[in-house]
């Protein structure tokens, strides 16, 4: 037998004996359930049962009333298979919450943990796990800081139904990007998400790309000469090799400038 494999087997059999023993004893002795997060194994929520959304409306009438226009209300359907879809789809079984008269900690609050949101938005779990992301997994920022699951459009600003614009959602925490600037960057009018993915990317500052391809997505133009990369009518071949467009004094004022039309600084 391969010596390495033999060592592994020996470690598993003999080194793992305490573990096997623990497993055996606990299998015989214990009958207690474990739940995968975001459900709770213990604490005030343990053992809660589903009560239905009508119970929630007793106290949260305003939330339930406005929910009809929310993006999440599209999940509501008639039929036997969809009968449990409602408030408790995200907040978990509510019987303990109802019994306690609405005590904090007796029901899942997705504002305090994104695990509930990730149950459907599984792609966002991966994005928030990246090193360059809003610190949602660290509990410092919540999905609900930017999204309203109970009312209107899913993003707090933007769309025809909202008074506030989508960028206002970002400006509430990033006021230095609001402007207005004497020389603005038209990309901001399109959206902050032209350059950033607010959930997270592999690149610093949640940029959608770390090099000049980010800027060239809008600033590339028809090229009429070989060996050149003309941007705004000017050859940038000698500049692009040096770094990103916004490095070291070329176009630093990416959100807008009070001094230069070329957003130099």
């Amino acid at each position, binding site marked *: 037998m391969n010596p390495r494999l033999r060592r592994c087997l020996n470690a598993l059999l003999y080194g793992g004996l305490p573990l096997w023993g623990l497993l055996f004893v606990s299998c015989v002795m214990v009958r207690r359930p474990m739940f995968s997060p975001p459900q709770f194994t213990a604490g005030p929520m343990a053992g809660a049962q589903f009560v239905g959304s009508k119970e929630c409306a007793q106290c949260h009438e305003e939330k339930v009333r406005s929910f009809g226009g929310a993006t999440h209300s599209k999940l509501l359907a*008639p039929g036997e298979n969809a009968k449990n879809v409602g408030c408790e789809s995200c907040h978990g079984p509510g019987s303990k919450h109802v019994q306690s008269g609405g005590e904090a900690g007796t029901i899942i609050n997705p504002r305090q943990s994104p695990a509930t949101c990730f149950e459907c938005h599984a792609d966002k779990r991966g994005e928030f796990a990246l*090193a360059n992301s809003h610190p949602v997994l660290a509990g410092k920022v919540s999905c609900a800081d930017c999204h309203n699951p109970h009312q209107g459009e899913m993003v707090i600003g933007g769309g025809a139904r909202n*008074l506030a614009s989508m960028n206002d959602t970002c400006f509430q925490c990033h006021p*230095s990007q609001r402007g207005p600037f004497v020389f603005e960057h038209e990309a901001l009018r399109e959206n902050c998400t032209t350059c950033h993915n607010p959930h997270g990317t592999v690149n610093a500052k949640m940029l959608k790309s770390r090099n*000049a*391809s980010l800027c060239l997505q809008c600033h590339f133009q028809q090229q009429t000469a070989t060996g050149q990369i003309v941007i705004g009518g000017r050859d940038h071949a000698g500049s692009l090799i040096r770094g*990103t467009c916004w490095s*070291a004094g070329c176009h630093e004022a990416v959100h807008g400038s009070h001094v230069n039309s070329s957003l130099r600084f």
Partner: protein
Amino acid sequence: MHLFRTSAPWALLLLAPCLAADDIVTRGTISVGAGGALQDGDRPSFQQIFQHRKTGYGGIEDFQLTSERKDTVFTFNARAMPGDDNYRLLARFEKTDKAYFEAGYTQYRVWYDGSGGYFRPTGTEFTVFDEDLSVKRSTLWAEVGLHTANHTMVKLRYERLGREGTKSSTFWGDTNLTGTFGGRGIVPTFYALDEVTNVFTFDIGNSALENAAWHVGARYAETTLDNRRHTRRRPQETADRIVTTHDDTKTDLFATHGYYQRQWGEKLSVSAGALITNVDSTIEGSRIYGQTFDPVYDPAYVRRQQRDEGYYDLEGTAELKQTVLNLNAAYAPSKHWSIRPSLRFENLHQESIAEFMETNIGPSPAFVAILEDGEGEHEKKWDEFSEAVEIRHTGLPNLTFSARGEWLQGSGNLEETRLLEHGAIVSIDRDTDTERTSQKYSFTSNWYAQPGLTLAAQYYYKVNQNDYEARRDNTPAGTSNRYPAYLANQDFETHDFNMRMFWRATPTLNLVTRYDVQQSKIHTGGEGLLMADSSKLTSHIVSQAATFSPTARVYLNANVNVTFDQMNTPAIAFVQHGDNNYVNGSLGCGFAAAKKDDFLVDASWFRASNFIDRSEFTQPYGVSMKQQALYLTWVRRESDRLIYTMRYGYITARDGTWVGRNDFNAHVVYGKVQYHF
């Protein structure tokens, strides 16, 4: 921290009488925890990824107290975790259906790694400041609400938002220490931020009327920015110098809004809203070269180079006036159909003017400082109409359909002027008309196929078209100030689709599968040129989650995300594609080992492999990185009230892009005691 210390005695004073009375039901939870890490390697990188201080943290993780009397509720919630600088103090006193008062303070710290770049052919890298950077965010607020007899709600709130500290920047400085390859921008840069916003809001409304709801509010926000960016250029060379860009802006924002909703029968609901916003800013700032941070401008600064332009004594004002009106309806002509049309109109007018002293440098070898009075002005007018219609159908059992169309038509004008030497030289005189149209069509369906099997799909197509017409433009061809007049057309087109399946394959196995695909194209037409495909973005994300409980006492959950994300550029001869691919996943297991003891095992890993070394020809960045983490957790439920938690973790991070400069290994320990009372 100071605010926390000063607020705590007041909170205790509030708390004491509540606890002392006889007819009070009091309950709550207190959790005390501490953690730390033994690290080997780059500690700022550890802090950024795990958002905990490298030297450890500990304190009251959570304290919740609810005290109820017959018609009053007092809640108190606190956290005090020195080390992580994570504090929360919230007190709320509510007299049911009468009034409430709440006040609180929260604070947390976000860590950044201030690493710069790495130039592989010569192994060039720089550490020019302590890369251990962090920003403290804080919120202090007080709010009072009153309910009148007819359920009208009046609310007053004061909020103070703060952001202070240092964070990394991607505005890297340049170096010539790259052999024969020429200059490269890899020198790290950092921001020093100090931002404060004071917000006062007043809201009054009633949403408890039988067939109507209304709301009127006003908001005043005063923001003060005192932000600096420090860029080091050509360190370890004779031209070593620091550029400090200072933004000292004060903004007053005043916004009023109103909203009215009326219900006619069960079928029709109409709402209208209005928002008027005024923003007034005073602008100050500078960009000055020197040998230290925050230098005073020195025309004879000995290390000045030819392109060391900057400015000082920037003074200006900016105004923004915005009016938004919208009208929404929800009409249900039958039980299973609903139609929701929306209209929105926005008028925006903004103008700004800034005067500054521009600092230029003459040619080598004298590098004579040249000062010019400069002035920039802009005025922008913008009108935008948008319409949307959403139709929902719920007539089939276990099925939902919705379709939505959105249209936007915007038009406006931008005038920009740049003057030098008190108007003697008009370097920019531009008048640009812009038209913008947008269309978006989306479809959503959910199918609850059988108990435990749900399929959902969403698709949207969106196209934005921007047309620019430079009515007046004095910028000569081949110069650097051509935008935005240089643009003639720019179109954005996006297809986005996702589907999700939730399947309870067996009573013990839940599976969630999700696939997201998005493709965007940008077409750009420059002045006198044909439209070019300037970018193509493609993203595929496959996500799989599984939860398995083979017995009631064990759960296993696994999550995997596989992402292919590429920003394709046609300029591939000069710039590499933006590759942003990665795989990450996690595996968790919970096991009820004894009557009082649970064991949890959590593992996670991340891998990105995007680095392509084209250092000789272009900036090589593409992230290549590996991370693995394994945590073992023991939870002991000593009683219904008392729970102990102990955790040990081992983490490794390997960074290929920076050739190991950001690598680390860490042993992480954490303990918590939780008591319900």
